[in-house]
C-alpha cells in the first residue's frame, strides 16, 4: 500500500523501470506545479511567508489538538475556503490530498468502526459485525485530522515558493546552517531525480525484453550505488564551488520580508480561529 503523499503514486502499470521513472517524474511535476501556483495572485500568495508558516503550523496543531468533530469540520472548511480565495481549486486538493488520504487513512480507519468497543449502533446485515458509536467517532477523528492537516500543509507549499518558506523559518529561530542545508537538499533532490531518470532511461533504451526479478533487483541496487558515488563526488564539487565564491563555513541569507496590514490581519485571524476552536471544545 502506497503511503499518503502530495505526489501521485505510480499506477502500477508497465514494467519496473516504467514505474520507477513515473514516480520520479511525478515528484518533479509536483515541484513545477507548486512553483507555478505560488506565483499566482491569491490571498495566501500575498501574505508574508512568516505569517503563513506560523499560521498554518498553528492551525495544523489546533486540528490535531481539538476533541470535537464539529470544530474539526469547521477547520477543514476554512482550509477549503482559503484554497478557493488563493486560486487553488477543489480538484487539485482532491487529487493531491483528499483522495490519497482517503485511500490510506480511510483504509486504516475503517476497521476501527467494528474493532473499537462501545455502544453498538447497528450490526452489518450479512456479517453481523457490530458498528459502534465510539468506533465511528474514532475513525472520523483520524480521517478528519489527517485530511485537515494535510490540506493546510499542501496550501502552504502551493502558495509559497520553497526559498521563501525556508527564509521564513529564520523567524522561528531555525539555525541558518540548517536552512541553507534544507535549500541545497531540495535543489539536489531534483538533480538526483534527473540523474536517476536519465540512468533508467539509458538502461531502458537498451532493453529488448523483460528483466528477470534477480536482474531487476541488481539494476535497482546498482543504480542506488552509482547515485551514492555521484553524491560524494558532487558534494566535493559543490564545496569547491562554494569556496570559490567566498564561502568560509558561515552561510548568510538576505532578509527582505516586511509585515503589511494584511499580514497583521492574518496573524490576528489565525490567533482568533485557534482561540475560538479551543474555546468551543472547552
Amino acid at each position, binding site marked *: 500500500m502506497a*503511503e*499518503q*503523499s*502530495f*505526489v501521485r503514486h*505510480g499506477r502500477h502499470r508497465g514494467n*519496473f523501470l516504467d*514505474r*520507477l521513472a513515473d*514516480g*520520479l517524474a511525478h515528484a518533479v511535476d509536483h515541484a513545477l506545479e507548486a512553483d507555478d501556483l505560488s506565483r499566482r495572485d491569491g490571498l495566501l500568495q500575498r501574505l508574508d511567508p512568516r505569517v503563513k508558516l506560523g499560521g498554518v*503550523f498553528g492551525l495544523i496543531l489546533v*486540528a*490535531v489538538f481539538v*476533541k470535537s468533530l464539529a470544530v474539526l469540520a469547521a477547520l477543514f472548511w476554512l482550509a477549503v475556503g482559503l484554497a478557493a480565495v488563493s486560486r487553488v481549486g477543489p480538484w487539485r486538493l482532491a487529487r493531491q*490530498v483528499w483522495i490519497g488520504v482517503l485511500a490510506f*487513512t480511510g483504509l486504516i480507519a475503517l476497521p476501527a468502526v467494528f474493532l*473499537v*468497543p*462501545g455502544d453498538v449502533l447497528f450490526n452489518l446485515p450479512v456479517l453481523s459485525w457490530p458498528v459502534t*458509536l*465510539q*468506533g465511528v467517532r*474514532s475513525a472520523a477523528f*483520524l480521517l*478528519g*485530522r489527517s485530511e485537515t*492537516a494535510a490540506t493546510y*500543509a*499542501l496550501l502552504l*507549499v502551493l502558495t509559497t515558493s*520553497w526559498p521563501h518558506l525556508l527564509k521564513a523559518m529564520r523567524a522561528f529561530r531555525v539555525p541558518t*546552517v540548517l536552512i*541553507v542545508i*534544507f*535549500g*541545497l*537538499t*531540495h535543489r*539536489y*533532490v531534483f538533480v*538526483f*531525480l534527473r540523474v536517476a531518470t536519465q540512468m533508467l532511461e539509458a538502461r531502458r533504451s537498451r532493453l529488448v525484453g523483460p528483466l528477470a*526479478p534477480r536482474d*531487476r*533487483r541488481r539494476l*535497482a*541496487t*546498482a543504480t*542506488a*550505488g552509482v*547515485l*551514492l*558515488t555521484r*553524491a*560524494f563526488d558532487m*558534494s566535493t564539487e*559543490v564545496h569547491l564551488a*562554494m*569556496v570559490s565564491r567566498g564561502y568560509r563555513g558561515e552561510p548568510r541569507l538576505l532578509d527582505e520580508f516586511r509585515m503589511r496590514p494584511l499580514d497583521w490581519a492574518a496573524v490576528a485571524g489565525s490567533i482568533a480561529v485557534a482561540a475560538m476552536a479551543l474555546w468551543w471544545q472547552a
Partner: protein
Amino acid sequence: MHIPDGYLSPSTCAVAYAAAVPFWYVALKRVQRLLQSRLVPVLAVVSAFCFVIMMFNLPIPGGTTAHAVGIGVAVVVLGPSAAILAISIALMIQALFFGDGGVTTYGANCLNMAIVGPLVAYVCYRLIAARAPIEAPRRVVGAAIAGYVGINAAALLAALEFGIQPLLFHDAGGAPLYAPYPLSVAVPAMMLAHLTMAGAAEAIITGGVVAYLQRANPDLLRSTAITSDVSPDLPAARGWYGVRQLWIGVGALMVLSPLGLIAAGIAWGEWGAEDFQDPAVRAQIAHASSNVAPPAHVPQGLAHLSTIWHAPMPNYVPAFMQSANLGYILSAVVGTGLIVLVLSGLSWLLGRRPPSGAGQA
C-alpha cells in the same frame, strides 16, 4: 512508516521531539567537527541521495514491490551521526514539501526512522561485520541483516507509538482520539508488513548497495568499517574519548530513570498475578482498557508462569533499598552494566577469529 498528522496526540509528538533533539544536537556537533566547512554541501547532497533512495520501489522475491527507507545504506556508508542528520533532513523535505509524513509527527518519524532504526542497524552491522575485510561477503550479509533489523526496530517503535494512543487519549464517551488500535492490533499489523515486504526491500537495497560498492568504490565503506588497519580517526579507535558523549548521555538517562515513578497508575499489560486481586488496581486496569473489566480471577497461565522465575530486583527496587528513586537508578546501572558486558563479550568473541583473507593485503 511515515506517520501522518492526526495519528499521534500532541503530547506524544512533543515527547518524540524532546527525545530526538539530543540526538540531533550531538550528531550535528560531531559531524560539524569532522566536516567543518564541508558540512553544508556534504549533508545537503547526501540528504538528497537519501530522499531519492526512499522513492525506489524495489522488486522483492514473490513478485511484488516495496519501498525501501534507506536506513541501512545511510548508516553503513555515513556512520550513525551523519545518517541521523541526513535521514532527518530528507524526512523534513518529504514532510513539508511532498506531504509524506506529518508536520506534528516529524519528531516521531525522525525518532523511528532517522535515530532508532539507524542506530540499531549500525550496531547490527558492526557486530556481524566485525573486523572482516572490506570486500568480504560477510559485510554484505551484515549490511542486509542490519537494514532488515533497523527498519523493523523503527516499525516496532512506530507500532508502540500507535498502540499507546487509545490507552491514553480518548474522549468522554471512550472513543479513541488518535490512532484507534491498541498494542495487540497495532504491533502485529505493523510488524507483519515490515517483517516480510518492507524488511525484505530494506535488506535487498542495503546488501545490494554494499555488494556494488565493494566492487566499484570500496573506499566509501571504510568510514564505518573496523578492519585490521584501524584508522586512528574512527571513534572506536579512540576508546573513551571518542564515545564519551554517549556515556554521558547514558549516565544522564540513568539519573533520570526514576521519572517513570511520576506516571500515575500501572503500565498497561505489565500486570502481575497479585494485581488481579487488588480492587484498586483492578479499577485502574479496567479504566486503561477502555472500561473492559479484567478477568475475575488470575488467568491460569499467568498464575503458573509467575511462579517459574522471581526477579532479583522486583519492581526495579532491590529488597535492601529503602528509596524507590535510588532503587531505580541502581537498576539502571546494573541493567546497563549487564548489556555492556554481554555486548563486550560478543564483540570479543566475534573479533577474536582472524578474518578470512587477513594478511593477503
